[in-house]
């Protein structure tokens, strides 16, 4: 109800009340007079006086009510409104109200406001301090990492790179030929650099380690794992993997009681060290093994000559001949060993110490995994396992070999369950994969050992024998007639427990903050590859632009420049760029030169499109491509698919269409116009990279605006774009 109405009603009630009082007084007077004088007389004068009195009272009453209303109802309401405004903005105070009571109230409220303002500025100050210290911490980390002689890469469990240093980038760059397809980048997958199975194998081997009591540190931790692998450029890297432990509430894989949310890889280039070792090994090996035969013959012949001095001269000549021959052969052998330094014999670098029990447990799990297709998982048991036995093996290869043999038994001989055992034999370890009943002949077994391994479509160039030889072991197939058992038996040199196990990573105690690991990116999950339903804000983008010889791709116009940058976690990465000129192998039109300023001279000696596109394709991997009028650029890329051998089938978003979604009533959606509308400053336009940068900035500004329209996923953005596209086509 409106305030004036209330006022009217209050006044009316007041008047009626006064009227009632006057009338009852009049009635009382009439009754008294009637009692005093018989018959009674009405006096007109008295009535007139009464009426005047009534009216006067009414007016006075109304005025009083109105005054009271203004002072006691309206003023507090006004104050309430003022207060509401003041709670939203700091620094404002209530002015002095008219009445004593309200003044007291205003004073109290002003006190509260002042206290609130103080608190606010205090909080702001703390936030500033915290931010500054975080910034300092980060720059310290950056300085530290830049200084390290080792490469460091930090990834989350999906293998997305969260952090890396310059050395890592150098170590993992594909080659010195200048065609730098950046393999390593924030948010990119480490599996583009390392074999996924290799990393997963190392992750599996991160084991809980009890805290060191001697160090007074009883907390549980997780040990680290090591592996050696080759990069695409042919370098050998030894990788040391440590887990990143998650705080509460962060989902991760459980190892023991601890939650692992990612891992740190420290990489060391061991190419040279290993080459040196391998060469020395080979020399020794060739001298020992190659020398045995000739020495054997020499010794036997010499012993014959001395033991049987009565032999016939012809016989004696034969033995002397043997001695001359073999001594000559041995000399040649020696020369060859000394000369043949570079021929690599055995890749010892792959070998690492691993506890036998651990290896068997992983093998059993691997073999018993559910397979694709209708295969039932194979039942695997481990029996007779010597748990003190360490092996020195290429555990990745060995596991692959065991799994391959077991699954082939299942596929070809319908073996339902297999067993694994590991026993010590002097200084050898005997690893058996065996089964009962099903007959298998020697020839089949032999060929299995020598065939390149292949399981469920994944194949390896190595055979089981290759792997076992790498481990300096022997493998053979054997049957026990009595027990109806058949087995693949592997003899391996037993290893020793490594003495200098790297220190386990211990989780931070309560209240202690784990250093550096608080990046939001850890919460990412790339588990789902259905990008469509992923929030736009969470996706990685490649923002790109091209310059071309002309505007008609189908008429033979070619790309002469590609520029691109990436958006990860809503941040434009200005330093992870792709910027490449391309020789179009055709003349440039004068018109186009006016637009981009790229002349014939600049393009001489640049790579051709079929060389550049695979590199660019690698740069775009796992991202959504964003361009302004992207359809134009995509058309150029797609026309080259057959020649370059790469398909650009990434999801694509177009800032032109998105602009039309956001501002359907604007007449122009040129990049400059959009940039101006969204407050993005434009510089360096009409170079592909410059335009890509502007497009990226524009796209970032669009994301919150799209969200306001309820467009938050890739699917929604694409559908909205499609609708405007069709709408635009109608014009």
């Amino acid at each position, binding site marked *: 109800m409106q305030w004036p109405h209330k006022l009217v009603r209050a006044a009316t009630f007041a008047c009626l009340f006064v009227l009632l009082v006057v009338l009852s007084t009049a009635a009382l007077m009439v009754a008294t007079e009637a009692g005093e004088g018989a018959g009674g007389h009405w006096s007109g004068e008295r009535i007139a006086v009464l009426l005047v009195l009534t009216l006067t009272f009414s007016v006075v009453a109304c005025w009083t009510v109105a005054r009271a209303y203004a002072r006691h109802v309206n003023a507090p309401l006004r104050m309430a409104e003022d207060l509401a405004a003041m709670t939203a903005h700091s620094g404002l105070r209530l002015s002095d109200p008219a009445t004593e009571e309200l003044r007291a109230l205003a004073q109290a409220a002003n006190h509260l406001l002042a206290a609130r303002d103080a608190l606010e500025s205090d909080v702001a100050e703390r936030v500033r301090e915290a931010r500054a210290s975080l910034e300092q911490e980060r720059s310290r980390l950056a300085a530290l990492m830049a200084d390290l002689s080792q490469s460091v890469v930090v990834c989350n469990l999906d293998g997305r790179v969260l952090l890396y240093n310059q050395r890592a980038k150098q170590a993992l760059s594909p080659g010195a030929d200048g065609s730098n397809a950046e393999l390593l980048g924030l948010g990119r997958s480490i599996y583009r650099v390392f074999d996924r199975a290799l990393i997963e194998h190392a992750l599996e081997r991160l084991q809980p380690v009890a805290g060191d009591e001697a160090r007074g540190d009883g907390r549980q931790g997780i040990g680290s794992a090591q592996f050696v692998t080759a990069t695409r450029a042919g370098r050998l890297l030894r990788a040391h993997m440590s887990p990143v432990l998650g705080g509460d509430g962060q989902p991760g894989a459980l190892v023991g009681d601890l939650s692992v949310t990612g891992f740190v890889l420290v990489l060391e280039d061991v190419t040279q060290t290993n080459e040196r070792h391998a060469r020395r090994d080979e020399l020794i090996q060739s001298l020992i093994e190659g020398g*045995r035969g*000739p020495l054997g013959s020499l010794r036997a012949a010499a012993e014959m000559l001395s033991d049987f001095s009565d032999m016939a001269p012809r016989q004696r000549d034969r033995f002397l001949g043997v001695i001359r*021959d073999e001594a000559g052969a041995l000399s040649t052998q020696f020369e060859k060993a000394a000369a043949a330094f570079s021929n690599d014999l055995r890749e010892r670098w792959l070998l690492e110490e691993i506890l036998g029990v651990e290896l068997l447990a992983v093998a059993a799990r691997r073999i018993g995994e559910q397979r694709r297709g209708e295969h039932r998982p194979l039942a695997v048991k481990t029996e007779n396992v010597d748990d003190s036995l360490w092996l020195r093996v290429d555990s990745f290869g060995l596991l692959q070999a065991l799994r391959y043999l077991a699954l082939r038994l299942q596929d070809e001989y319908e073996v339902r369950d297999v067993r694994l055992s590991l026993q010590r034999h002097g200084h050898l370890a*005997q690893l058996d994969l065996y089964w009962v009943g099903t007959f298998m002949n020697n020839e089949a077994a*032999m060929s299995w050992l020598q065939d390149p391994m292949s399981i469920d479509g994944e194949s390896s160039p190595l055979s089981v024998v290759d792997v076992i030889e790498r481990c300096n072991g*022997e493998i053979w197939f054997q049957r026990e007639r009595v027990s109806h058992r058949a087995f693949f038996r592997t003899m391996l*040199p037993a290893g020793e427990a490594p003495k200098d196990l790297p220190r386990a990573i211990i989780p931070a105690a309560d209240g202690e903050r784990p250093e550096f690991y608080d990046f939001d990116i850890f919460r990412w999950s790339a588990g789902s590859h259905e990008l469509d339903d992923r929030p736009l804000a969470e996706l990685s983008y490649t923002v790109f632009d091209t310059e071309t010889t002309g505007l008609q791709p189908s008429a033979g116009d070619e790309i002469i420049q590609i520029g691109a940058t990436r958006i990860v976690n809503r941040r434009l990465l200005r330093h992870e760029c792709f910027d490449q000129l391309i020789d179009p192998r055709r003349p440039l039109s004068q018109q186009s030169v006016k637009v981009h300023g790229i002349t014939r001279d600049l393009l001489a000696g640049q790579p051709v499109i079929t060389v550049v596109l695979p590199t660019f394709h690698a740069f775009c991997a796992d991202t959504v491509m964003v361009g302004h009028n992207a359809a134009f650029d995509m058309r150029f890329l797609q026309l080259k698919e057959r020649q370059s051998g790469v398909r650009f089938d990434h999801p694509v978003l177009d800032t032109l269409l998105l602009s039309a979604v956001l501002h359907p009533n604007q007449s122009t959606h040129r990049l400059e116009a959009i940039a101006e509308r969204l407050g993005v400053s434009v510089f360096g336009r009409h170079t592909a990279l410059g335009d890509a940068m502007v497009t990226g900035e524009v796209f970032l500004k669009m994301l919150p605006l799209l969200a306001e329209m309820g467009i938050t996923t890739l699917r929604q953005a694409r559908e909205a774009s499609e609708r405007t596209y069709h709408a635009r086509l109608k014009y």
Partner: protein
Amino acid sequence: MSKKILIADDEQNIVISIEFLLRREGFEVLVAGNGEEALAIVRAERPDLVLLDVMMPKMNGFDVCQALRADPELSATRILMLTAKGRDTEVSKGLGLGADGYMTKPFSTKELLAEVRKLLET
């Protein structure tokens, strides 16, 4: 009757000495230059002992050993493996496949003779 011994080795120079030695000791000696030949001679001649070199053309010593042990009729044939590699794993493979003894080159001819006698007595 003198015992029959087959020497299976492609290294002519060691065969000369072993053959000479064993003949002097009164054994009947047969020689095979590769694995397949060795297997054929064992089947035809039934020697009491085979001196089997691991590294041989056509069929290596392990394969010959396995083939011999797979044939129940030849179970009485003793097998002494000779190797020029001498890795422990290789030795245990030979024994695992059914060889009765193992010698690594260069061996002393006296030890060889002792080993041969031991295997033929049992």
